[in-house]
């Protein structure tokens, strides 16, 4: 690996809580060499305005356990939220970041423009408290959270029936593909200039979940062009997506696409609520 020389400020953020000491492994990566650490996974971060990543490992006093901490600095708080939102399975502990997800072996959280992962490297379990201790210490050293850190686009989503844990904020076609695969082409014109949300809704019916995509384009013209292109190319969508496609519409520079079992009344109510929020 050709890791970059670590940024001293980031190293200070990643110091160990009581009972743990830094082991030998420490590396920092920039956008040009993040793939050396994450291989194909690097693109996921690059799609969220990745800037730097510091990785440090720590061992417990008895050296029987080890933890790896990854501190990612993104270009904006919205993108730190975005990368967190793409995998947030777990409990939601308090006092760690602006949102956190805690599992048996992994703590993830975001705060300001930082995304943090703390992982039990031995996968022996029993380290939840240590994961939290690291998380709380790191959180205390990061810039304070601000209400405006969350992407403004989140506020357009209607609240009724929303599964909040399903909300994912993203920009790129690769991110969309990992949520729902539409086509080999970039049929929604996604890219760094677009902001997008995927969210799941329960419509009240017993079966089925509706997936909602909301995309904000830089201009109304871009939105109109993509609506036209998407509508014209419906028959080229992947089979499962084509079957599930329920609705497409646009308002100003916002595009709405719905997939899944939803009737006209639900769509009308949902759409009205969404357009009211923009």
């Amino acid at each position, binding site marked *: 690996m050709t890791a970059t020389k670590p940024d001293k400020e980031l190293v200070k953020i990643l110091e160990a809580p009581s009972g743990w000491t830094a082991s030998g492994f420490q590396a920092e990566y920039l956008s040009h060499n993040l793939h050396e650490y*994450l*291989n194909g996974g690097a693109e996921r971060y690059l799609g969220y305005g990745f800037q730097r990543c510091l990785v440090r490992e720590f061992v417990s006093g008895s050296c029987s356990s080890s933890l790896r901490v990854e501190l990612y600095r993104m270009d904006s708080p919205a993108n730190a939220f975005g990368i967190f939102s793409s*995998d947030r399975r777990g409990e939601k502990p308090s006092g760690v970041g602006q949102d956190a997800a805690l599992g048996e072996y992994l703590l993830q959280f975001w705060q300001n423009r930082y995304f943090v992962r703390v992982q039990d490297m031995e*996968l022996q379990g029993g380290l939840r408290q240590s994961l939290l201790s690291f998380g709380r210490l790191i959180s205390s050293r990061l810039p304070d959270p601000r209400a405006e850190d969350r992407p403004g686009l989140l506020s357009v989503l209607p609240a009724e029936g929303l599964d909040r844990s399903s909300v994912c904020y993203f920009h790129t076609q690769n991110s969309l593909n990992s949520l729902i695969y539409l086509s080999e082409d970039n049929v929604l014109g996604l890219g760094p200039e677009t902001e997008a949300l995927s969210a799941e809704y329960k419509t009240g019916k017993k079966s089925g979940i509706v997936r909602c995509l909301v995309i904000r384009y830089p201009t109304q013209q871009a939105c109109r062009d993509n609506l036209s292109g998407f509508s014209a190319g419906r028959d080229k969508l992947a089979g499962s997506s084509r079957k599930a496609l329920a609705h497409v519409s646009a308002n100003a520079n916002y595009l709405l696409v719905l997939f899944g079992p939803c009737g006209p009344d639900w769509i009308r109510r949902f759409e009205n609520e969404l357009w009211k929020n923009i």
Partner: protein
Amino acid sequence: MTGRSQKESISRKDFIRAGAVGAMGLGLGLNETLAAEQLAPAKSPARAKVVLVRLKAAMTAEGQKDAGVLDAMLGKTLCAYTGENDPVAALGHFIKPGDSVGVKMNVMMTPTHSELMACLARMLVRLGVKEEKIIIWDRDNAGVGIEGAFTRNRKYGFDPESVSRIITDECTALINIPAFKSHWLSGVGGALKNWCGAVTKINVRDVDTPYPIHKDSCADMGRLAAIEAIRSRFRLVIIDALRPLFEGGPQVNPEYLWHYGGLLASEDQVAADAICTELLTKKREQYKGEPWPLSPPPKHVELADTRYGLGVSDRGKIDLIATGEEKDRLI
């Protein structure tokens, strides 16, 4: 080579007999190698065979490996595939003592388990392959012999076509030994994707690269296994399914690691990936309690068949010989 017409069912008695790790020699002539032209099919074969052996005791849920159990498991896998009773004889269907063998592992995030590679290297030595003729590598980090399973600090570089010189200059035979996972960009990371670490100058944005493989969820991944230097030397894929990743990837959320305890083997990399795809799909459905399709879909598996003739992607044309523990085998 194992003939395609070979009897593909194995009796229980044969299988149990095959479980004993056995003889040291095979009576194969030294310096005997398989001609490349014998190994480079112009189009996918009509059918393919994949063996799956499961033994969860090979590794604990926490990831501790038992080398003895792994060795026996690897032997059983090769015997089940070839119908031999002796693992070394089984390995001799693919590799000759005179071969120089490149073992292409994967080091990233969910790496091939070192102990498994050491078992394979030991078996190659028992077959008669000189230890210095065994190179275990990923990207440009290589190790030689059994120690290469654990330490890889040699550099061989890449040829003008960006292919590892281990392949072009050093090896007469290649064994592909990835650990399989779901993958954020390609749907599945298995045999075909593992060749990414055998070339250089690839990048996710496909800029200035001889191998633009990433577009449309890596649909053209088969291009790498189709590189003639790889295709002509490839003999066998052994897939480390001891603890696969079934969501996300390559970055690991341990929540999605799964103690499956499996090894798969085939001469057909496409068929092996097709089986892995089926296995991942079933695991995801089991986990969620409802269909949870891989996204993106691993289009590269089918295209490796239809575009490059690298093997069989149609599940209906793949004979799966599954043995070992049946509970939660899923396929």
